[in-house]
């Protein structure tokens, strides 16, 4: 009963924050509301017993989204105001669509279809890890993860085609030293999440997102001058996730008894997954960080 009330308040908060972000008059307010919305989403995932998602959402929402949006805002500075758009026509249309959606989601039966999760549980023992989400991501549906790394790479390559420079400003010394103080902890926590992914919530995506947030925060505080596409090691590591994945797939094909691409032999599965995940973490972290703060360094224009 109490938990239901908690759900009601949480859902109301989520909807209010989203609605206010969409309707607020100034863009900067929309962005802050959206960041608050991200924090609440992490809580919702935690409540819905999806700790993996809560980890990823927290890492993305608290670090990356904020940096992305504030960078975009800084570009908007000095932009003229926009005329206030009409509210009623879209509102009526959207209300109708929402009513339809509401009607259809209430048709969904509460009885779960357990076929897939039963099959996951059945094959968990031969996957090399004991955490089902990691087993799905890195073994049963390894194709998805491989292609996702490709999508990340494509996003980075695409963003690099449209560079627009925004100078980094000298950080406040308190902020710089505080972020430096926290950086070992960030590194340690993401390594822990990566390692932990084999048996408990954690894994390459969460660790990668966290590491990316850390890199972005340090970069915004004028650290990590090496973090740019010009650096050969960075480029190599960005590609390393994909390469390690493909190599692992090819190598496991060569082993006797292996017929299917991207299916790991049982005895080696744990090791292969850890290896692939390590490179994937580094690749995800660097790709996301470059996407967020990737522009070439430049002296402030009028300093």
């Amino acid at each position, binding site marked *: 009963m*109490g*938990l239901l*009330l*908690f759900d009601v*308040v*949480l859902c109301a*908060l989520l909807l*209010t*924050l989203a609605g*206010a972000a969409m309707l*607020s008059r100034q863009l*900067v*307010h929309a962005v*802050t509301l959206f*960041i*608050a919305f991200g*924090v*609440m989403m*992490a*809580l919702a995932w*935690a*409540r819905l017993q999806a*700790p*993996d998602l*809560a*980890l990823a959402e*927290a*890492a993305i929402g*608290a*670090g990356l989204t*904020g*940096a992305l949006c*504030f*960078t975009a*805002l*800084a570009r908007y*500075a000095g932009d003229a105001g926009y005329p206030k758009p009409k509210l009623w026509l879209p509102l009526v249309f959207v209300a109708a669509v929402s009513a339809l959606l509401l009607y259809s989601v209430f048709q969904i039966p509460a009885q779960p279809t357990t076929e897939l999760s039963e099959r996951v549980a059945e094959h968990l023992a031969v996957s090399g890890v004991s955490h089902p989400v990691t087993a799905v991501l890195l073994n049963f549906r390894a194709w998805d993860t491989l292609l996702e790394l490709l999508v990340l790479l494509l996003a980075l390559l695409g963003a690099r085609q449209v560079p627009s420079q925004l100078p980094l*400003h000298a*950080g*406040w010394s308190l*902020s710089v030293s*505080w*972020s430096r103080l*926290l950086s070992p*902890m*960030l590194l340690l*926590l993401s390594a*822990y999440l990566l390692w932990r992914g084999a048996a*408990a*919530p*954690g894994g390459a995506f969460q660790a990668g997102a*966290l590491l990316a*947030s*850390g890199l*972005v*925060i340090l970069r*915004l*505080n004028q650290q990590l001058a090496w973090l740019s596409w010009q650096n050969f090691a960075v480029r190599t590591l960005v590609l390393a996730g994909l390469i390690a994945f493909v190599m692992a797939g090819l190598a496991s094909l060569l082993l006797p008894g292996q017929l299917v691409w991207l299916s790991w032999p049982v005895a080696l599965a744990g090791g292969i997954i850890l290896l692939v995940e390590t490179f994937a973490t580094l690749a995800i972290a660097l790709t996301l960080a470059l996407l967020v703060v990737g522009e070439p360094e430049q002296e402030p224009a*009028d*300093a």
Partner: protein
Amino acid sequence: MTLVLLLLLFSMLLGLWRVIKGPTLLDRLLTIQLFGSSGVAILLVLSKLLALPALLDVALLIAILAAAAPAALVQRLGKSRADTRSLGKTP
């Protein structure tokens, strides 16, 4: 335990007014700070209540990122012209 959870969420609900109404950007950023720390507390209690120890990791993650992020973000936004202008003014 559920009562604690509810009251913590209620304290976030109180903050909602400030994040929507402002009036200054500082108030909004502050409310995000409040959401961060109440969120950490809620996650701690939830991890106990739902018996999900992994939520403690989530709480640590939010704590560390919320610790470092606002400062970095604010620099990105606010210092741009203000800083160079003030540098120009000093004799």
